[in-house]
């Protein structure tokens, strides 16, 4: 039965992948090897490697480093906030209520939420006014239009993507293991580090991927509330596409970015798997050896 209908089940997925993944990526790859039309921008359908050689440029390199740095800092902050949050959610009696709270921001448009933050953090915003009214500051603090604002809003935007996978792994964790560790002499902190963390690695890995990738490809947040110092690769692509209209360059940068991210993800997952599955593999090997001995 299953064999007979197998291809039918697969078809929608294939169509979906082709329409939304393979075809767009192919177009981008194709464009990256074309020649830029001078003056007006766009492309001439003629093979060229110019778009790739143009990437070897100290400015782009600096922006890439900056992007990587901002994404790393944001991810570290998100994971550091998400682990305790997910832990308390998972241990709480009001799990579903907290889950709802985490999901609620998704009900509002992302841009509207950013503008809401601008209303809070602006020079004439709620926070500055509040600080001034209690006499803590004389003029105003410049919260917006710098790299810190970009990090803050990146953390705000993608934090749920860290909390949710962590919550779902921690929820399955057997908390009596922490008591056992305490019983055997571990402090609360040691019990967390040695027992909780190794057992929720899968959740941490997922949370890192789910937050690092969008943070790395960030473009709207630095565009709206960043400055020259927080310019990211996403902004370069957007500018090359819409302002400068150097489509091959925008494409080549996208291709390189996608390739690097994919490689990074694969490496990260590989590294993580070998760490968690190492012990299991060792034990399995030991068991096989034993079995062989028994057979002899």
């Amino acid at each position: 039965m299953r064999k007979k209908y197998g291809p039918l089940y697969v078809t929608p997925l294939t169509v979906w992948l082709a329409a939304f993944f393979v075809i767009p990526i192919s177009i981008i790859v194709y464009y990256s090897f074309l020649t830029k039309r001078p003056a007006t921008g766009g492309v001439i359908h003629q093979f060229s490697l110019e778009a790739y050689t143009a990437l070897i440029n100290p400015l782009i390199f600096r922006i890439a480093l900056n992007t990587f740095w901002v994404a790393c800092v944001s991810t570290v902050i998100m994971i550091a906030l998400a682990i305790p949050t997910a832990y308390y959610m998972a241990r709480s009696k009001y799990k579903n209520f907290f889950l709802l709270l985490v999901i609620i921001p998704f009900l509002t448009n992302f841009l509207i939420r950013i503008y809401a933050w601008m209303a809070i953090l602006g020079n004439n915003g709620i926070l500055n006014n509040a600080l001034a009214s209690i006499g803590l500051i004389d003029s105003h603090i410049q919260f917006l239009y710098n790299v810190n604002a970009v990090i803050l809003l990146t953390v705000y935007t993608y934090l749920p993507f860290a909390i949710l996978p962590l919550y779902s792994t921690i929820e399955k964790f057997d908390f009596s293991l922490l008591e056992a560790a305490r019983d055997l002499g571990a402090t609360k902190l040691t019990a967390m580090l040695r027992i909780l963390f190794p057992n929720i690695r899968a959740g941490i890995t997922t949370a890192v991927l789910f937050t690092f990738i969008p943070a790395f490809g960030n473009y709207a947040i630095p565009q709206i509330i960043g400055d020259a110092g927080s310019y990211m690769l996403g902004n370069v692509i957007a500018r090359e596409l819409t302002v400068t209209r150097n489509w091959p360059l925008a494409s080549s940068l996208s291709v390189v970015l996608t390739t690097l991210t994919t490689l990074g993800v694969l490496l990260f997952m590989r590294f993580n798997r070998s760490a968690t599955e190492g012990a299991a593999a060792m034990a399995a090997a030991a068991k096989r050896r034993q079995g062989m001995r028994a057979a002899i």
Partner: protein
Amino acid sequence: MKGSLVTIKNVEKSFGGFRALKGVSLEIKKGEFYSLLGPSGCGKTTLLRIIAGFEEPSAGAVLLDGRDMVPIPANRRPVNTIFQTYALFPHLTVFENVAFPLRLKKLPNATVKDKVQQFLELVKLPNEGKKLPAQLSGGQKQRVAIARALINEPSVLLLDEPLSALDAKLRQHMLIELDTIHDKIGITFIYVTHDQQEALSVSDRVAVMNEGEIVQIGTPFEIYESPTSPFVAHFIGETNYIIGAVTRLIDEVRVEIEFPEIGAVVAYRDKPLSVGDSVKMTIRPEKIRISTELPEGLSEKFNVLSGNVDEVIYSGFQSKFFVRMGERTMFRVFKQHVRYFMDEKAINWKDQVYIWWHYNDSFIVEVGET
């Protein structure tokens, strides 16, 4: 009290408005195998968790070797626990599970290795160190949990229904093994169970609990042979109850009680009674003998009754008889399959039988008002 290692004094524990422990006091001696026995929900785990330090008592004191334990956190109490579900660390090998307490103390590798091996041998798992917990059988997991809990050489080992996840045969086996380990290392065991057979067969002393209170403390023999309340008599083993009225105080140790549908019976007298008291008498089914013929020359110390066999349950090593004495009175009688007399006949359903027991075996568990 002198000589006791663990002292529990008037410990109370409330969860919200619910009183899980209502003033529990215990004295546990050094090296004792001490059982907490009681029905589900009576507060055994709660008491154990208070001793371990996972729960704070609402009132009362927990002393270990005279030292107040309440302010001391769980990780610094010289007490280790074997959890009902073992709580082995799934990401660590058997070896590292057992080594965990030693690693926390940052002992040198060679010491850890020797000591872990020594304890794995104690629990008869010398070759399983490299396995992960998921690759072990239930009994093996149990052994790892024992080794891990003992390696710190605690002065008290707490066991919370450690055998309940095992099948009947293995449970018997592990129980004997636990007893052997206890004899070998000589530390104090506090063993929680709701299985009376388990508690009776290995404990030095048993505390029977009910609804957050200790109802009786004694050796297994005392608990079984002289229950001080109907609850204990009923909870530990099977028993017959029968309610009657005191008609005569025969002497210091004997009392005559009149029962409806049966008549007068002599029972052991171990508490102050007066004529006319309404009493609840108990007699264990295995203390009663049964036959279709009345044996000759029976001493007057025996109570003899006659009735009809209502039901026979054959269970291998013994048979259980339900003997009806009247509308509302029935006796359960257990008979081992040995012959008292060479010419004894088999007892069948509906037979008219005699039952008799020594007055000493029937005693009063409750005195009510008349």
